[in-house]
């Protein structure tokens, strides 16, 4: 794996001499029974990783360390209550130095976690997703539906988004409330992967979603109130960036792009714009923001705060050919493909819409849709969608407690269900829990 990093290791340690790996041990976290900390030392500065698995054939591995050193430590996420084999691997040139294989047994899961049931196959990604309802718990779930990480939030708030931090050392989530008035005591929470520490960033009126940029900047949706022309308070939204040093900056306001006197909405129960989902494009340095009450998704230039286009709804600057969405939540734009979780555009059920999106021409053609047939599923809040490179689509039916992976024909390949009384928040997918690119 990672040829460039292997080359980096080669340059660091030279050729011909194999490093010695010693003092290898594994400790199961007291806070998270599925997290194992593996420590080892080498007689020279190296980078390495852990291979692990249910047998001595291993099959899984962590990410290669980025900084060479002689003292090493990595977190490994493993299924609960399982004896796992592991060893340290240090790439050297075209060869590898490995430690002797060892075993570690993880702890049992807390009884509070609901049962997850998987049917089908064909899914090999990892999910960071909040559990809501019976518990409020950000969790990481493996391809087989196994819990690999968990944390219980006791703030009496909800959690809507979970992300592994870009440095791979912690998990970020938002503790907030979107039911009724937003919470004054909402905050962003950072929990060390082994559960040993927790830091918070208080941020009142947090909404559903946030992103972490590659440089560690966190951008969160926050509810904003302004007075209208008649003195009546209007509930809009803003984007707040929190830099790595903790500085908070309002970088966008709904009033920057919209006018409540012009861009009116019929349903005002949830305020004016009611932002409910956020994505970030590193290539474009732009945010994509979903505005529920507008039934619109807006592209925001991060540098200028300008709205480059509005997709959907009465203020749309994009011409839509085919199905339109209503009160959508999460979405994904990759190149010319735009998939949207459409909560209420279908007849009595929610669905996913795919558009062939031509930004230059300002057009979007609906080319594919998916709705569950057996049974029909209606999700009035949250909901998420991700398109994979192979054309499959992951659909998170949040309140219905179900996650489907479907192919382009609409066939459900893989399905995850939780117990009655629980629900999922937004779903952050990755091919590896160690990649640092959630």
């Amino acid at each position, binding site marked *: 794996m990672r040829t460039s990093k292997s080359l980096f290791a080669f340059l660091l340690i030279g050729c011909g001499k194999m490093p010695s790996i010693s003092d290898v041990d594994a400790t199961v976290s007291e806070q998270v029974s599925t997290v194992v900390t593996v420590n080892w030392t080498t007689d020279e500065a190296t980078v390495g990783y852990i291979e692990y698995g249910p047998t001595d054939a291993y099959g899984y591995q962590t990410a290669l360390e980025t900084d060479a050193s002689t003292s090493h430590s990595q977190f490994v996420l493993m299924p609960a209550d399982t004896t796992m084999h592991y060893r340290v691997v240090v790439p050297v040139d075209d060869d590898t130095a490995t430690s002797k294989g060892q075993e570690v047994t993880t702890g049992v899961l807390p009884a509070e976690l609901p049962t997850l049931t998987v049917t089908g196959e064909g899914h090999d990604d990892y999910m960071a997703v909040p559990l809501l309802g019976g518990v409020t718990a950000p969790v990481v779930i493996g391809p087989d539906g196994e819990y690999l990480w968990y944390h219980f939030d006791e703030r009496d708030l909800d959690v809507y988004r979970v992300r592994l931090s870009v440095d791979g050392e912690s998990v970020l989530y938002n503790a907030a409330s979107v*039911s009724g008035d937003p919470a004054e005591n909402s905050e962003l929470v950072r929990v060390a992967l082994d559960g040993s520490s927790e830091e918070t960033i208080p941020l009142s009126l947090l909404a559903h979603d946030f992103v972490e940029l590659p440089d560690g900047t966190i951008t969160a949706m926050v509810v904003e109130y302004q007075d209208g022309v008649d003195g009546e308070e209007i509930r809009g939204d803003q984007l707040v960036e929190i830099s790595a040093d903790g500085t908070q900056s309002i970088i966008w306001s709904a009033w920057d792009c919209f006018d409540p006197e012009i861009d009116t909405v019929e349903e005002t129960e949830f305020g004016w714009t009611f932002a409910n989902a956020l994505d970030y494009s590193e290539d474009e340095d732009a945010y994509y923001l979903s505005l529920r009450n507008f039934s619109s998704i807006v592209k925001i230039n991060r540098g200028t705060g300008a709205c480059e286009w509005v997709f959907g709804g009465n203020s749309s600057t994009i011409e839509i050919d085919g199905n339109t969405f209503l009160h959508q939540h999460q979405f994904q734009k990759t190149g010319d493909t735009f998939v949207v979780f459409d909560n209420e555009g279908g007849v009595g059920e929610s669905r996913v819409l795919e558009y062939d999106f031509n930004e230059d021409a300002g057009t979007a053609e609906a080319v594919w849709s998916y709705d569950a047939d057996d*049974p*029909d599923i*209606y999700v*009035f809040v949250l909901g998420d969608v991700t398109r994979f490179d192979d054309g499959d689509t992951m659909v998170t039916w949040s*309140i219905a407690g179900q996650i489907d992976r479907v192919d382009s024909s609409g066939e459900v390949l893989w399905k995850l*269900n939780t117990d009655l*009384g629980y*629900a999922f928040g937004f779903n952050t997918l990755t091919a590896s829990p160690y990649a640092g690119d959630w």
Partner: protein
Amino acid sequence: MIGNLLLFLSTAQAAGYYVTGVGIRGMGRAGAVVAGIDDLSAQYHNPAALIRLDRQVTLQFAGVHQNVTFDREDEADLAFDPVSNSAPPMPIPALGAAWHLPGPDLTVALGLYTPYAPYYTYPEDGPQRFTMTDISLLSAYAGPSVAWRPIDGLTLGLGVAATMLQIDQGLVTHVAPATFEATDEPEYDVNTRISVRDPFRITWNAGLLYEPGDKWAVGVSVVPPIRYQASGSLTSDFSNNVYYTGESPFGQVLASSSASDDDVQLAITMPAIFRAGVLVRPSEGTELEVDVAWERWSAMQSLTVTGVDLTIETTSEEDARVQDDVAFPLLMQDAWSLRIGGQKSLSDRVMGRAGLLGETSGVSAQYRSVLMPDGLQVGYGLGLTWWAIPDKLALDFGGGQRFLLPSTLNNAQVYQVQIDPLSGVVLPGKSVGDGEISAMTNLFGLGLNWTL
């Protein structure tokens, strides 16, 4: 004189919708009366036998008391206490009159009778609640019958009746999103009531009696299927469901504590019945009879509430609409019964009766439930007639018991009715029919026959 009184009184063998009936004298002979019935219940068993009556008025009351015990088992190893129904003895009245016209040698009769009107209640939080919490079923028949003897020994009988059916059934539906595996957790319960009525339907029956002398007789009768088309209301009470109380993962989803649809339909086909009996009289005052009966319950494959359009108000912009049929699959099968009974004069004023019966089940094993607690049944009857005023006033007493032999239900196809509060989809929930079921029915009755 108008004629004789008649009642057709049933000795119901099972709860719910599975009903049959015999009269009080029939009760005493365990139903073995197709060839030998000699009171106004001939209107039910074999209208040709009305020819035996002269001028008679009948008033009868019977009581039926059935105990059903269900010990539910669950594949998830949930533990349940056995549950039994609460069913006070139920008085069932009937009356009628018959009049013999010697000229044409025929008897006409007019009767009003209620074959079976059960009212059962079970605990609202019991493990059977997904099938039934209570049921009241009332059916009644009223109409004329005639028996005509064109030649000695051979009598033909025909009856026509107006009939009605009224059902009021309560059960608990499981209201939770269809994507979740259904559970027994009571916070997802919704008390649901189906109240339907078919006020008027015409039916008929016919019979034949061949009795060449005093020594023996043969009787046959047939009842066509009765296809009730009942209509009424479907009401759901969400007040204790988490999606109304706000204890669901997303707070209050249902905006209203109840929803109703006042125009639903329930089609019920009561079975065609064919009865045949052979009677011998080995000595004066003594009768022995063997009957068989075939009931075509296979005509009833399910109970399905149709025409449902239930709007469930939600806190979101779109209300949920339940428009799927609500079906209770039954997959019933034809039932056979064998009845052996007789009577003997015990004195100038007293006639004693006794009988035994055995009956196969009309309900396939996987579909049995407290709604249809059927199975192989055995029973007996005892009775007597006391002539308080010779040739004028006879008092009939009857009683008996029927036993549903305990049966273990595995792989039951009895499911919760689950309603998705978000989409309104109706689907089968979890299987709730496994366990052991048993029942015992006590029958008793008193009749008064006044010969004019």
